[in-house]
C-alpha cells in the first residue's frame, strides 16, 4: 500500500480550477520531485496534502489517515507530514532551540527536557547544534532553512513536503540545504519536493512529476523523464532549463 494516496483531487479558487484531477501514489521512502511552469499548481498540490488548502473533490490519505477538514483529522495528518516553506517561516521571537522545541511541547506535550534533547539531536543532524541559543535573524538564509528542517523533523513525521526550499537562498547557500535533504533521502525519508534544481532531481529523486495546467502531465523515473520526455510541453519546459 502506498504511503500517500492522492486520488482525483480537484481544487478551485473561485471560478478558476487550479488542480484538475490529480492522481499520485507515493510509496514509503520515495523521493518525488515536482516540476512544472509557474502557475501549474505545484504549491497548491503540496498545500492540499498538508491541509493548508481544502480540496473541492477527490481524496488524500497519508498512511491510511484520511484528510478531512476538521481540527482533529487535520492535526493527526499534520503530525505525519511536515512542511518546509520557501520563506523558512521560523518563529522570530523564539531562539533556534525554541523553534524546534515549541511544537513538541505544545502539540505533543513532550516534557521539556526530552523536547530539548530531541531538538539538540535534530539540530545536530542539520549541522547547527552550536546555534541552539541564537535567534533566527542572526542566521544566514541557508542556516534558517536548515533550522526549519530540524523543526519539522522534531515532530518525527513520516513524510516531508518541501516547496522550493532553496529558491529564496543566495546561490552559494543552496548546496548546504540540498546536502541535508540528500541525507534525509538516503536515510529513507519520504519526500515530495517542488524544485527548480534539475540536477538535484536527477541525482536524488526516485520519480519526477511534471505538472502542467493543473494536471500530472508526465511522471517517471528521472532518467526517463529527463532523457526521453514524451510530451511537447515537457520538452519545451526542459528546453528552458
Amino acid at each position, binding site marked *: 500500500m502506498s504511503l500517500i494516496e492522492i486520488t482525483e483531487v480537484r481544487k478551485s479558487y473561485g471560478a478558476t480550477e487550479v488542480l484538475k484531477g490529480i492522481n499520485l501514489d507515493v510509496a514509503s521512502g520515495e523521493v518525488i520531485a515536482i516540476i512544472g511552469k509557474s502557475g501549474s499548481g505545484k504549491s497548491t498540490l503540496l498545500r492540499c496534502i*498538508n*491541509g*493548508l488548502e481544502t480540496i473541492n473533490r477527490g481524496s488524500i490519505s497519508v498512511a491510511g489517515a484520511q484528510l478531512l477538514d476538521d*481540527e482533529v483529522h*487535520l*492535526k493527526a495528518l*499534520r*503530525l505525519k507530514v*511536515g*512542511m518546509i*516553506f520557501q*520563506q523558512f*517561516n*521560523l*518563529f*522570530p*521571537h523564539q531562539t533556534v532551540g525554541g523553534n524546534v522545541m*515549541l*511544537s513538541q511541547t*505544545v*502539540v*505533543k506535550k513532550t516534557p521539556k527536557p526530552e523536547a530539548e534533547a530531541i531538538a539538540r539531536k535534530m539540530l545536530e543532524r542539520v549541522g547547527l547544534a552550536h546555534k541552539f541559543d541564537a*535567534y*533566527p*535573524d542572526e542566521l544566514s538564509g541557508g542556516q534558517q532553512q536548515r533550522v*526549519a528542517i530540524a*523543526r*519539522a523533523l522534531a*515532530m518525527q513525521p513520516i513524510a516531508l513536503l518541501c516547496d522550493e526550499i532553496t529558491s529564496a537562498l543566495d546561490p552559494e547557500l543552496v548546496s548546504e540545504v540540498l546536502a541535508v535533504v540528500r541525507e534525509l533521502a538516503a536515510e529513507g525519508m519520504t519526500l515530495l519536493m517542488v524544485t527548480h534544481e534539475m540536477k538535484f532531481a536527477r541525482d536524488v529523486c526516485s520519480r519526477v512529476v511534471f505538472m502542467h495546467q493543473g494536471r500530472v502531465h508526465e511522471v517517471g523515473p528521472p532518467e526517463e523523464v529527463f532523457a526521453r520526455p514524451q510530451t511537447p510541453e515537457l520538452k519545451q519546459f526542459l528546453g528552458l532549463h
Partner: protein
Amino acid sequence: MIEFTLWDILRNLLLATRWTVVLSLVSFLGGGIVGLALLFLRISKRKSLRSLAKYYIELFQGTPLLMQLFIAFFGLGLFGIDVPAWLAAGLALVLWTAAFLGEIWRGCVEAVAKGQWEASASLGMGWLQQMRYVILPQAMKVAVPPTVGFSVQVIKGTALTSIIGFVELSKAGTVVTNATFQPFTVYGLVALIYFALCWPLSKSSQILERKLNVAHRNH
C-alpha cells in the same frame, strides 16, 4: 470676599486629578479586557462573530464620545435605571476605549506574516495554540507603542465626562473658576496638569516605537 492663594487653587485641582487618573485607569483596563474580547471576535473563524465585532467597532468609532456619554447617562435613565455620573462615565469610556483598542490590536495581529500561521499549522498547532505561542507574542510587540499612544486619548477623553457632572479635573476647573473668578490661572493650571499626565505617555510611545524599529527587528 475670600482670597484664594495659588496653592489653594492647585490643591483643589490636584485632588480632582485623582478622579481623572482613576477614571483613565478604569477605562483603559476595562477597555483593554473588552477590547481583547473584541479582538478575538474580530479574527475568529466564524463570520457572524467577525461581523458582530465589526459593527460594534464601527458604531463606537463612528459616533462622538460625548453622545455615547449622554446616551449612557440619560438613555439608561429612560428605562428607570438611575445611573450615577461616575457609572455612566466609566461605562461609556470602557466601551469606547475597547472599540479603539480592539481595532488597533487587530491591525497588529494581521501584521504578523501569513507564513507564521502556515508554519505553525503545519506543525499541528490548533488555532488557540497558534494565537498563544506564535501570533500574539509577535503582535504584542508591535502593539505596545500604539496602545500606549492611545492611552493619551483616553485621558483626554475623560475631560468630556465633566459635562454629565462627573467631578474630575476639568469639572474641578470650572468649579474653582466660579469661586475665584480667575479663569486664566485656573484653566492654565488644568492644562498643565493634563500635559504632565499625557506628555510622558506620548513621549514613551515614541521612544518605544523607535526602539522597536532599531533593535533586532524581531526580538
